[in-house]
């Protein structure tokens, strides 16, 4: 069955520190992978996506993610977080021939001043 696991429910990092949010997926076919961010009271905004090619993908707001097929992972990283990065982050997966996206349960990011 298709699934996405985000093992960290809540993470707190200091402003200016580096960030890594973990995501593991289970999908039988070639996956398309996404990271979305959701600020309080807002919809989801796409940060980045991986379809094929270079396994290190760059996104908006200085985020990047690396696809590791051997580990079934797609971790999100940022070298230096800003207070405005505080939000909920969702990893998601879909098949290359399917439209249905499966979301993880999210990781809430708090920023320590």
């Amino acid at each position: 069955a298709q699934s996405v696991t985000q093992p960290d429910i809540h993470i707190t990092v200091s402003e200016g520190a580096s960030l890594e949010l973990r995501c593991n997926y289970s999908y039988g076919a070639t996956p398309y992978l996404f990271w979305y961010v959701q600020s309080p009271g807002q919809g989801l905004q796409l940060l980045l996506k991986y379809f094929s090619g270079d396994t290190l993908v760059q996104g908006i707001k200085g985020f990047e993610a690396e696809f590791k097929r051997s580990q079934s992972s797609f971790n999100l990283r940022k070298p230096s977080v800003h207070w405005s990065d505080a939000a909920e982050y969702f990893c998601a997966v879909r098949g290359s021939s399917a439209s249905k996206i499966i979301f993880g349960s999210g990781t809430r990011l708090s920023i320590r001043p």
Partner: protein
Amino acid sequence: EAGVVQSPRYKIIEKKQPVAFWCNPISGHNTLYWYRQNLGQGPELLIRYENEEAVDDSQLPKDRFSAERLKGVDSTLKIQPAELGDSAVYLCASSNRDGAEQYFGPGTRLTVT
């Protein structure tokens, strides 16, 4: 270009009452999705439309939920009667035909008392 528009943004109703949510997708997007997001969880697909046709409604509780997308543009999601467990954020998203990237609206936060 306008994004996905949803209304109302917030709705509080008593149980057993009906409620309806409206969504206007991005112009030109043929595919429209309705998701439900429970507190602390990722969005879960309720129904997907390709133009006017509901192509995936397997997760829609059909005893109380209904949806329509007349003329293949705007869509309405209805709950009748609402139950306490329906309290959630209802998100609408749209994409172009291949569905690779979905754009989300701000959502409607429903509280059933």
